């Protein structure tokens, strides 16, 4: 693995030791197989310990891993006949969001998602997966098209956030996000959203008003990045780790808060370790979600979506003296 995360350092060292020993036995006449076996057992145990006890900050690191699979990686594995549609028909084609039509086990669907780049060049083209208003307007155009033809919509969420820039403000970043929330609430077709990496704030939610919202185990979803929160709360971005731990941004936290429906398990060590396998985990949940939603009528879908979001929020109703969640 070319890129190891900080909490994985002990593993890297151990792996290095094992391979050194193996190399040594190959060339010399000494048998170290006992030691190697012992070390391998230790590695196994260490891996289990580390990956079973990932903290929020560790998960942030996994969610931001440069090799973490992107929307297009999953589209390629989950769907057939994918045809990408470009443009918002108003201003431009924002490559930070991809979308198009495809088939899912023969069922016509519309697929939309944030798209990061795999290398610097692609990242510049895709603006590191941070959309401008035209990206959200393209997404909305495709959702409306899906509605016209009665196709379910699948959204993959993976963005640090909507792009904070001058041009974005000029073209109405807020309006574009708001419009999506408004229109998604009224879509007459099933909408399933899956957070596959970072779910950064309004920029993520603008593709995230669905009948079902699922999250990969090591993905995050929050109102602001941990760095941003630390800068605002404590005026020190280097306290990001502390912010990550306080803000409840992991899949497990969001499940407990009743915001997401399911936590989709990840391959041990993170989705990037085996994309094919990870796609299968997503496939299981996606298939089940669509099966449940397809029989519902338009009004039922809209009502279910409204109920889902109406329930979210925590407060005290002083007239009733009970806490509602």
């Amino acid at each position, binding site marked *: 693995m070319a890129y190891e995360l900080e909490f994985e350092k002990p593993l890297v060292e151990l792996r290095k030791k094992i391979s050194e020993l193996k190399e040594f036995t190959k060339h010399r006449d000494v048998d170290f197989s006992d030691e190697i076996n012992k070390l391998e057992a230790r590695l196994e145990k260490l891996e289990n310990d580390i990956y079973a006890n990932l903290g929020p900050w560790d998960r942030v690191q996994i969610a931001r891993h440069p090799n973490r699979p992107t929307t297009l990686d999953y589209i390629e594995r989950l769907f057939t006949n994918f045809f990408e549609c470009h443009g918002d028909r108003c201003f431009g084609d924002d490559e930070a969001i991809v979308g198009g039509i495809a088939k899912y086990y023969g069922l*016509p669907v519309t697929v939309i998602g944030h798209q990061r780049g795999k290398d610097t060049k692609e990242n510049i083209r895709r603006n590191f997966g941070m959309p401008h208003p035209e990206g959200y307007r393209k997404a909305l155009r495709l959702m409306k098209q899906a509605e016209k033809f009665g196709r379910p919509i699948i959204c993959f969420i993976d963005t640090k956030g909507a792009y904070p820039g001058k041009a974005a403000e000029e073209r109405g970043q807020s309006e574009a996000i708001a419009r999506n929330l408004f229109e998604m609430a009224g879509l007459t077709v099933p909408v399933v959203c899956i957070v596959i990496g970072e779910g950064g704030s309004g920029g993520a939610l603008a593709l995230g008003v669905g009948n079902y919202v699922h999250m990969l185990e090591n993905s995050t979803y929050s109102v602001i990045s941990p760095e941003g929160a630390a800068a605002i709360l404590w005026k020190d971005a280097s306290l990001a780790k502390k912010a990550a731990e306080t803000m409840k941004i992991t899949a497990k936290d969001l499940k407990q808060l009743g915001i997401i429906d399911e936590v989709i398990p990840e391959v041990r060590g993170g989705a990037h370790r085996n994309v094919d396998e990870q796609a299968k985990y997503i496939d299981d949940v996606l298939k089940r979600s*669509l099966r449940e939603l397809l029989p519902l009528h338009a009004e039922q879908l809209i009502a279910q979506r409204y109920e889902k979001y109406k329930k979210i929020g925590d407060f005290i109703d002083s007239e009733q003296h009970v806490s509602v969640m």
Partner: protein
Amino acid sequence: MLKDLFSKKKKYATIPSEQAKQDVPEGIMTKCPKCKKIMYTKELVKNLRVCISCGYHHPMSAPERIACLLDEGTFQEYDRHLLSKNPLDFPQYIEKVEEDREKTKLNEAVVTGEGMINGFPIVIAVMDSRFRMGSMGSVVGEKIARAIERAMEKSVPFIIFTASGGARMQEGVLSLMQMAKTSAALKLFSEQGGLIISVMTHPTTGGVSASFASLGDYNFAEPGALIGFAGRRVIEQTVREELPEDFQTAEFLLKHGQLDAVIPRHELKDVLTNVLDIHQSRGGDEWHTN
């Protein structure tokens, strides 16, 4: 000297005699306007009129387009009997239309009808820029509106290939209103859930680009096609600045969010088939039993 035996022959520019000129019948060779390469017309046609050396997409006539896109023997033409009048008594209008009718063997600047693309039934309208620059008068508007109505009756997708300079000046405001008529027909069709696919070819401008050409559920264009509302010169004179080189090309429009995709002619049939297929599929039984 030995060298003198091989005296250099002087080079003269040769002017072909009248006789020689007649040896090569007109139209046997075609010069690509982009790369200037001269090639056999036959070869060019075989390559769907895409330049063999630079990929330039030469204009295609409506009958050619239909022949290369639709399944053999499936095309049935509509409304061949509609002919242009001269509602404004525009001088020499009818003569010019008749000339083009003679030249193209078409009744007007659009051919409409029904057929199949890889087995998927469709209604199709294909404009032909050889006929009065593909301009839209009453007959073009009427033929397109009628074709949309047929697609509605049959509940099949409507595909339109545009190639037009815009509204037909000789029919004045009647031409302008064809924009509203065709768009209204598309609205009714769309409300019924009809699938509209527009493929813009070189050139698609003025009133045509500002009506049905831009109203597809999917808007495609051929590489390099000129697409726009006002002409380049008009804009340059109005804003008094030089426009970028790729201004109003298909690629420019894609970048500016107006197109779903730019599709090379060789891939077009496959793309259309895929889109039609996705729109016709309902998914297997596993999705519909509960």
